[in-house]
């Protein structure tokens, strides 16, 4: 019997020592896809970022990342009557740092805009429209204690749109507008003309400078953008938020790709009806 025990122990030791490790986890084949991140905002020029999705392996330095940017596509935007080919320019505040922008066509409320991208023999298309913007009735900066130096923004507005809402902020060191966490709102959750009041959590960014805090510091000037957007935009930004929050969540794992309205590619082409506010939190907090 002792021999049997010894054999069993040796056998299990051998098998157990053959530990699995991270390297043993295989990866599915790399599937490059053309990524579109495009917008046309009320009163603003059309903007489109193009890239190819990157493989899941290895380290990425800036040079490597640049190889995934698409700089040689023909990008055009049309409002149904007028069409324009967008020009490429560098924008170091965005990733990828190249932006196709229009020179003539600016977003107009109520209009539908068609995007066409020609790249690598593929035709990538999408369409969107710009809903009427809705102004905020009030914005407040609230701290749980007067001695605190940080707090949250509270907004209120009248639910007059039958579309969807998205709140963005830009607070130093952020260089671009960032969608707020829980900042996407389905107007149908509320009665028409109902007064809606919400707390806003700051969105997080990685580039150019990482910022993961969800609250606002009182010594900052914040730009707040309140957008109305069509359903495809709301679904995209909702799935984007799900990805950010739950990509490592074992309970509600985010294991589905972002919703997209891009044919032949992935990403978003969305129109926004905007109202932008400048908020000096120091002054707001002192009131």
């Amino acid at each position, binding site marked *: 019997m002792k021999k049997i025990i010894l054999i069993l122990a040796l056998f299990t030791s051998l098998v157990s*020592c053959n530990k699995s490790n991270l390297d043993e*986890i295989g*990866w599915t084949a790399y599937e490059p896809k053309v990524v579109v991140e495009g917008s046309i905002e009320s009163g603003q020029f059309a903007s489109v970022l193009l890239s190819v999705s*990157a493989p899941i392996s290895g380290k990425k330095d800036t040079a490597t990342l640049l190889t995934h940017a698409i700089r040689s596509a023909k990008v055009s935007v049309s409002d149904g009557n007028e069409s324009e080919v967008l020009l490429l320019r560098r924008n170091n505040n965005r990733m990828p740092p190249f932006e196709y922008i229009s020179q003539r066509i600016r977003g107009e409320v109520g209009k539908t805009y068609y995007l066409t991208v020609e790249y690598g023999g593929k035709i990538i298309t999408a369409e969107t429209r710009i809903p009427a913007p809705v102004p905020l009735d009030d914005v407040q900066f609230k701290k749980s204690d007067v001695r605190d130096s940080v707090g949250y923004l509270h907004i209120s507005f009248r639910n007059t749109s039958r579309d969807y809402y998205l709140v963005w902020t830009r607070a130093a060191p952020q260089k*671009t507008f960032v969608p707020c966490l829980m900042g996407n709102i389905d107007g149908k959750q509320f009665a028409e003309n109902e007064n809606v009041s919400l*707390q806003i959590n700051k969105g997080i960014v990685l580039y150019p400078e990482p910022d993961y805090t969800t609250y606002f510091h009182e010594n900052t000037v914040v730009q707040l953008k309140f957008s109305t957007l069509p359903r495809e935009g709301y679904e995209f930004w909702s799935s984007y938020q799900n990805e950010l929050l739950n990509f490592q969540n*074992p309970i509600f794992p985010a294991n589905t790709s972002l919703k997209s309205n891009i044919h032949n590619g992935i990403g978003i082409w969305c129109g926004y009806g905007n109202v932008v506010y400048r908020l000096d939190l120091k002054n707001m907090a002192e009131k």
Partner: protein
Amino acid sequence: MFLRHLFFILALFCVAAAVRGENAVEDSVLLNEVVVNRGSRANVSGLSSGRLSLRTDDAKMLPSLLGNTDMLKILELLPGIQTSTDGNTNLYVRGGDPGQNLLLYNDVPIYSPGHLAGIFPLFNADHVSTVDFLKSGADSRYGNFLSSVFSVNSKEAVPQKASLKGSVGLLSSQATAEWAMGKNWGASLSARKTYINLFLMPLIHYFDSSKNSELQGVGYDFYDFNATVAGRLSTKNRLTINALYSQDVFEVAENITNIDAALKWRNAAFSAKLETTLPENITLEQTAFYSTYSNRLSTAQADISINVLSSVEDIGYKNRLQYRLFGIPFESGVQYVYHNLLPQKSALTNADMAFRREAFGRNTAHDAAAFTAAVIRFGSKFQIEPGVRYQFFRSETQVADNFHSADLRFRAQYRLSATQLFRAGYSRNTQYIYKLTPSSVGLPTDFWVASSAHIRPQKGNEVSIGYYRSFADQMFELSTDIYYRNMENATEYNVDFGESKTTSFDNQILYGEGQAYGIELLLKKNYGKLTAWLSYSLGRSERRFKEINNGRVFPAKYDRTHDLSLVGAYTFNPKWDISLVWIYATGNAYTQPSSWYFVNNLPVREYAAYNSMRLPAYNRTDISVNYWFKPNNGINLSVHNLFFVRNPIYVFMAIQKDDDSGQLNVNVKRKALFTILPSISWRFKF
């Protein structure tokens, strides 16, 4: 969305608590299993024939971690019951989903998912007598399941004298008192309690008081009670009353996002069983019962608060009459259950605004059934066991709906000799109440739903055949089974395939079809100083959903192609024994990113086909040593996961930026719950 974020934080703390708590408890309990039939000289018992009865008194002769014998985990070492990941309290049988098992405690449905992360067993083994397990060809008296039946029974024998027994472990203790009440009556009362909040958390905080400690603000508490009163009303009437109550509270206060969260869940069951002996050896068993389970998640961050409540409640009566007609033994009965369910009633308020959610509301249902079954013998070698169960289910939500089903059950057995037999079984099963399982790591966020105009009942068929043989005066036993089962209206939940932010859960359930098939093998040594068994299952569990992977077949999450367990115990002398368990199983299926890209200056992932990849194989070895001062009084030393194997419960891709170089690091990270976990416990009986 925010709710998911909170669950994520809860999950992280749960994992951290379990890992850092260094307790972890249970596992080596598995060794007990060897005892299942130890000493048995019966002819072919058909251990894996689809039916098994496991006695806790035997199981507890072998060691367990922290004094907690987990009977349900022990069953995972047998063929057909898949090895679950660490921390997972769900049971997976022959490719079925966890919500497709019927779990009974003294014949009362139990809906509780168990205690936190499976650290503590659901049932107090000191109060339990046997666990009967049916993985195929179930009796016609059981309904509302597709996969298997776990029937846990407390001790009903009237104690002859007073006694106190229990165990003291690192994280919890338990005690059971038994006493006689006169000549014909007796009672037993059991209680368990953890002292994580009382001792462990203050100790951890003392040694790791940093603000960033993962366990800052974490708390967990649970207790449970079991009570049994049994006795004779008369010579022909015996009454048994059972009660069970448990409550768990898991709390998290998080500094970075300023979130306070509490998850509470509660389970209660009460039953009264009257057994009557009628003339001509007819017996009638009647049971009235009440069972309830609820969980509530409460969270708050500044002016945002979320509350989610789910509950299920059953009030029922069932009977069964055992009698003979023309010399043929029959069993017949009727059952009625009133179900009262509240699935995921949620309230979200933000700055005094109440978000309207499309609530599903309360769902009540009348569930009535009648069954009959017989055992017909043809000579001494061949017998068949036909049965039928008719069930009527009326669901009342916004729109009432009626369902009917007539399920056939059939078993046949042919005995080739005293040491060899063949068995075959078929069963048609229908399930009207089933569980939706958002959590994969053991947090009790599951909820139960009833079939209705919105939710379809699940149906399934299973066939299996088996061959069993014993050798060398029953010292060795070999059993093999082959099975196939299919499922209609199999469900996938929480996969976020559709719009889900403001709609109720029933719009998030996807329906498809499933099938599972496989071969099971068990080789067992029944007695001697060394007792052992080798269990191996080779199987597939597949699903096909129109909305997933373009309608292509994909593996179920707990599809384990290979599942191998080796259990051995050696008794040196009455004072010393040693046990060992080794498990090796194919990794779970999961969904993996295929590429990534930037959106709004943040990396996001593009995912490959659903469940198209596998976690590393599950590999764990436990060892345990007992020293007995005297029978039922000894010290147990156990080591769970002896070889430090990191068995991930999930894998994810993390993209991080190096602030100095600006370089992005794309890493595969995996979360493991338990690595090596030594423990010591003292078991006593006075």
